């Protein structure tokens, strides 16, 4: 007999699908089947279940470059000592874990005077900066499904990065006021490449890479009926800009989804700033919203927990006993580049794979701990690797979707024998940190 668990949350991307059906063997130990998930989500469940491939105990890097197995207690001790003894440790990641774990991590950071940062640093951090400059008129994904007749994907490629986004929320679903589904919607894609997402668009504006800001401001001018200089704006003919502006204004409810194409290109927060202001302007003519296509399944949650505990969504510096924030100074990339920190703790992220190599090298130079279920480039260069159970597969916890809607992840199988969850590991570190600081 197998067991079937419904309404399972997918712990991969910020779309946070919550309709997965997972079938396990009768002991609840092995996953047999995953329904409704995209290829990536299914892979996550199946690979978690493949125990042979995983490390199940902490490991410590030796002089010769090899790893030696250590106990969880030893790993807790190393981590606590490292954090307590550092003058300015960084605790980075937090995006592939639950809000409960984040909360414990923050308490450790507060006691140790650490920096706390999540993967927004290399993802939607500049979005958060733009929101701080000009706000963000937004809505939940259900609003998109029920009302939207204009969908813009700007610098994002959901066909690859958020595979079920288009079918669940944005292009295909039929909602309360959108009974005709895709037929009722006009899709615009702005991307320097004719991506697979662009393939299903009504209009593809092939923007010159790195000039989104110019195009966005030109669109804003066009929406206002103002003049634009030059015949071609950022690779797009002027007439097309005016046409696009008309198309946006003529809808009843529009949404701009945007991704790394604007957050990581030249201009960064300015691109998003302009996109938000375009959305804001359009509300003088019709209804418009804008939503960031957040990557990690709980990077949004990390921003929320940091927000209510410290008041800032990422790159929070607690070193002075109070919270400060300025990503250009306190961001993990900056502190690694400038060599401002003296220890590195990573949980729920893989900077080794996703940071520029200069920063990766700096991590490998520092006392460091990586907490990750997988073997990753980060675990490979850190001094200690602590494998833990998979959140959303082997342990539950709260997560926040890209539109900030909280959904509680479910546990579907048991972790391998004797493995800790990240919350348990953090609680043990917190306890030890308190003891060390009391001395």
């Amino acid at each position: 007999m197998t067991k079937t668990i419904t309404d399972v949350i997918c712990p991969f991307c910020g779309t946070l699908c919550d309709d997965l059906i997972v079938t396990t063997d009768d002991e609840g130990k092995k996953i047999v089947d995953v329904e409704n998930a995209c290829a990536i989500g299914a892979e996550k469940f199946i690979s978690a279940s493949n125990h042979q491939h995983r490390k199940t105990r902490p490991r410590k890097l030796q002089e010769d470059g090899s790893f030696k197995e250590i106990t969880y207690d030893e790993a807790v001790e190393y981590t606590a000592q490292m954090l307590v003894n550092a003058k300015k440790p960084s605790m980075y990641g937090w995006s592939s874990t639950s809000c409960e774990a984040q909360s414990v991590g923050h308490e450790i950071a507060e006691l140790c005077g650490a920096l706390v940062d999540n993967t927004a640093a290399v993802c939607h951090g500049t979005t958060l900066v733009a929101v701080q400059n000009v706000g963000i008129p937004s809505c939940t994904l259900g609003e998109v499904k029920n009302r939207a007749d204009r969908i813009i994907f700007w610098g994002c490629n959901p066909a690859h990065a958020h595979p079920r986004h288009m079918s669940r929320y944005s292009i295909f679903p039929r909602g309360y006021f959108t009974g005709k589904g895709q037929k009722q919607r006009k899709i615009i894609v702005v991307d320097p490449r004719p991506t697979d997402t662009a393939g299903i668009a009504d209009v593809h504006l092939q923007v010159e890479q790195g000039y989104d800001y110019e195009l966005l401001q030109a669109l804003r001018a066009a929406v206002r009926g103002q003049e634009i200089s030059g015949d071609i704006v950022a690779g797009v003919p002027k007439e097309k800009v005016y046409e696009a502006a008309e198309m946006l204004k003529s809808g009843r409810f529009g949404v701009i989804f945007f991704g790394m194409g604007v957050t990581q290109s030249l201009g960064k927060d300015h691109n998003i700033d302009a996109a938000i202001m375009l959305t804001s302007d359009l509300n003088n003519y019709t209804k418009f919203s804008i939503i960031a296509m957040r990557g990690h399944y709980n990077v949004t949650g990390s921003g929320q927990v940091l927000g209510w505990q410290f008041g800032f969504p990422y790159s929070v510096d607690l070193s002075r006993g109070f919270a400060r924030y300025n990503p250009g100074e306190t961001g993990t990339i900056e502190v690694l580049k400038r060599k401002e920190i003296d220890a590195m703790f990573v949980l729920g992220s893989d900077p080794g794979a996703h940071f520029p190599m200069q920063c990766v090298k700096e991590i490998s130079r520092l006392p460091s701990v990586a907490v990750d279920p997988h073997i990753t480039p980060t675990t490979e260069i850190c001094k200690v690797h602590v494998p833990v159970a998979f959140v959303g597969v082997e342990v539950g916890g709260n997560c926040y979707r890209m539109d900030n809607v909280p959904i509680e992840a479910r546990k579907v199988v048991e972790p391998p024998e004797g493995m800790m969850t990240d919350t348990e590991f953090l609680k043990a570190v917190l306890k030890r940190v308190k003891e060390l600081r009391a001395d």
Partner: protein
Amino acid sequence: MSEYIIKNGKVYDPKTGIKGDISDVCIKNGKIAEKVSSKAKIIDAKGKTVMAGAVEVHAHVAGPKVNEGRNFRPEDKLFTYQPTGKNTRMAGGFSIPTTFKTGYEYAKMGYTTVMEAAMPPLYARHVHEEIKDTPIIDEGAFPVFGNNWFVFEYLKNDEMDNVCAYISWLLRATRGYAIKIVNPGGSEAWGWGENCATVNDPVPYFDITPAEIVKGLLTANEKMGLPHSIHIHSNNLGNPGNFETTLDTLKIAEGVRPDNKFGREQVLHHTHVQFHSYKGDNWANFESGSKEIADYFNKNKNMTMDLGCVTLDETTTMTADGPFEHHLTSLNHLKWANVDVELETSSGIVPYVYDPNIKVCAIQWCIGLELGLLAKDPMRTFITTDHPNAGPFTRYPRIMKWLMSDKTRQNMLKGFKNSDKVIAATNLASIDRELTMYEIAQMTRAGPARSLGLYNIFGGLAPGMDADVAVFNIDEDRIEDPEDIEKAFSAADCVFKSGTMVVENGEVISNGNKRTLWVDAKIPMNQQVKRDVQMKFLKFYSMNLNNYEVSNHYVPNPYVIEVDN
């Protein structure tokens, strides 16, 4: 649990009718007691004021829009931080403090129970996560119902039983406390960029009017016998001339009698009335409508209100009234966040600087205080700032000072840049009433507790009630400088929460044993509502029904008010 006896203080307690007499207050097993043993710790309150812990009826302190406000205003934190203490986490923020600071600051002012004023049901889990991280104070949250598609459809079809069953289900699913209505119909209209400016503007595509929504929810509330009445923020907030819409809304409750077992005497609570008491038809001839509102309110005893006093600070406005915030950003050009929530509500956030040198801001300041002074029954009139909309809650002591001292008010009035114009547009200059300490206790303790249906446990010092007690270093008969009022109420001498001393000499010494209040109305889900809920989740929500309900571990220490009608 320790016993305490607070001796020799001047006690102000509407519950027992003590009006400043020297009296002892005993605390035992977390409750107010008749007497205590000789082991009781003695607190000498000679020359000091003793009151029950205060009850906040309306503040935005937890949830998605509060947190968006925090995250999108890093500048609100600049130079405000208090470092980690022996018993406290680090705490910062001015207009939208962190959860820790929220708990500490309320407690320091002697507040022990706080109601979060607007919880979008889809985000209930978030609200409870924040409440869980807010130390000391007991909290509840009001889910919003005034723009809910289920409510629209049932009311339109006149299916009152289904409305009640749905409300009961949603209160349970969200662990909510009361029926909150924000800009009825208008926030749904905002889904199309529109609004309902009067009580008779139909909601687009739903064929129902704000008046019908309010009437329907009010009827349901009394039919269910919930502890609190409907809690309403009516249409047309913040616009010149809106006092008429406010009166139209209040009239819906005319003649309706309360029906509940909690001692609640009103059928409608109108919140932050200051924002709804404007005359004139544009910002140039903008003036106070406080007299008209207060007159109506004084005559009709089945309603309560809170003030929403403007404190003349730089703050952050946030409301489930989406269209209003869009209007505001077009006036002040400051950053604007908006979230429309599927099938349920909308919301918006805009920072705002209430500059005393701007005529409109000064008039708003007058209106809030006028309402507090013109309202004759302090048991039905509560001090709020609609935190953080008209100002942060940390300014309550300042509002108490203004209400208690005509001199400070007149000095303020004279000091405004547009003093003459402000005086001409308002009534404040001609009001010399000074509220008494007893009236303050009514407005901040007994009144709100009774209005919330909690007067048997909170807001008073009768034996058997929860031992929420605050001692302030002030003597009503010996106030030399009105500034002393603000000083005393900003940092209580000591505060007890459920019998635990949480504040001593103005400093937090314990994180107490915080509880979450929610209402279990116990109306079973009928087949029709069950089917409707399943259908709407399948077709229109973006979340599965089975992932919607807030599970118990987000409410680790619940205080469930059971309704047995």
